[in-house]
């Protein structure tokens, strides 16, 4: 079992890789969505709301397959029309090195990984947007009014007064999303990204140690999530506003 560390290690790296991309992408996109939803005009705030609700109301797996299948479907249609189609798949960026006498290759980006990152990012953005919006509305309109009374533009008020407060307030709720996001990265296994769970699958086919292998994976996720949530907790304590 432990002899398969050269599978578990790259699997773990890919899981973390997906996690970080999804978190960062979800953060910026989510922030943008929440600002649009909260402060945008009627039409674009409705669009943002629609996106958020749609993503939150549908399974991650369906979103993943939808994005993954899209180029295939488009190609099939283009092909039927006799048109040139998009080349799919045959590319990848990977790093490879010799560790303790084993050759370890990690595919950082290929078609599947890209689809995985995009899906997880788009999905997390909708959830993060809701947390941001909650924090923004808890800051209240009074703060923005006060900013405007000092001659700041609405945008400056959002940027310098509302956001700094909202970002501090959002930390507890956001930590929740951030700490549990690693476990959702598992879905990309379904489109063939070789992350931790896919590696476990492979090990099971080799060793038939189903219980031990999957338990080990469960334990790795559990520890990872616990560590992240502890770390974010301590950040929260350090950034809180005195007296509040």
């Amino acid at each position, binding site marked *: 079992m432990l002899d398969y560390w050269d599978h578990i290690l790259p699997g773990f790296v890919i899981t973390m890789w997906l996690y970080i991309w999804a978190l960062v992408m979800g953060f910026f996109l989510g922030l943008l969505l929440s600002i649009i939803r909260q402060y945008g005009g009627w039409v674009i705030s409705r669009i943002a709301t629609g996106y958020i609700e749609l993503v939150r109301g549908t399974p991650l797996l369906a979103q993943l397959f939808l994005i993954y299948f899209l180029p295939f479907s488009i190609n099939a249609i283009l092909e039927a029309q006799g048109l040139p189609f998009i080349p799919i798949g045959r590319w990848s960026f990977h790093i490879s090195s010799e560790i303790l006498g084993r050759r370890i290759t990690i595919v950082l980006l290929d078609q599947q990984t890209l689809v995985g990152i995009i899906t997880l990012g788009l999905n997390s953005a909708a959830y993060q947007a809701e947390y941001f919006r909650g924090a923004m509305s808890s800051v209240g309109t*009074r*703060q923005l*009014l*006060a*900013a*405007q*009374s*000092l*001659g*700041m*533009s609405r945008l*400056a008020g959002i940027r*310098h*007064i509302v956001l*700094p*407060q909202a970002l*501090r307030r959002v930390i507890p709720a956001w930590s929740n999303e951030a700490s549990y996001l690693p476990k959702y990265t598992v879905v990309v296994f379904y489109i063939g990204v070789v992350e931790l769970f896919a590696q476990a699958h492979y090990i099971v086919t080799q060793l038939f140690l189903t219980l031990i292998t999957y338990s080990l994976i469960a334990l790795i996720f559990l520890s990872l999530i616990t560590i992240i949530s502890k770390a974010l907790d301590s950040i929260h304590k350090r950034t809180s*506003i*005195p*007296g*509040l």
Partner: protein
Amino acid sequence: MLRIADVWKSYGNLQVLKKISFEVAEREVKVIFGPSGSGKSTLLRCINMLSPPDKGKVYLCGQNLMAPEINLNEMRARIGMVFQHFNLFVHLKAIDNVSIGLRRGKGLPKEEARAKALKTLARVKMEDWADHYPAQLSGGQQQRVGIARALSMDPDVILFDEPTSALDPELIGEVLQVMLDIAKTGTTMVVVTHEMGFANAVASEMIFLDRGIIVECGTPQHFFTSPKSERVKRFLKQIDILYGRHEELLKLPNEEGSK
């Protein structure tokens, strides 16, 4: 300095302000009072366009704020506002609450803004609390910072929206004292308040607002000795009972010298 002409404002079906007109001269202190729901706060927000009037005109130094080409942010930087609930920026220290308007509204460099903020905090006797966050201050202290925040911008006029009505009684005096000091320096002020002692001490004219219309205006002398309308008489009696006059809280101008 400030002229409000024929201002109307409604929220949905509710007509909050009806045909309001008055003028505030330079160095004048205008006190607006009246029952709750009479439109006083709305009137202040119409003046700095935080909620623009439906129709009418608001002139600041001859410029009509309702004109489409006007830069409202620039104009608001010239109209200070002190809020009932202070509305201090809770994530910023007192000093930064005062300096942020100078930096982001007026575009002053950081150090200059800071120096000026500190000086203004001294004017409201809050310089020792510069590094405290709003939540670490009492209500009275917070409101003094709020006043300093408005004052630091060197505005043409400062609007006060019931600055003491959210305060515990024992904290009202320190805020009124600061307002009195500012009035003495010749700052143009429009003050919505129930503090008749303050009005009596500094108001050049008082306006009684009820259900969106100006019922009566005149000097404090006029209101406290011979108000015309029945509504004003009744209201003045009520607030005497509810709030008292807090005259004892104010060191009136002539007593100041004995300190």
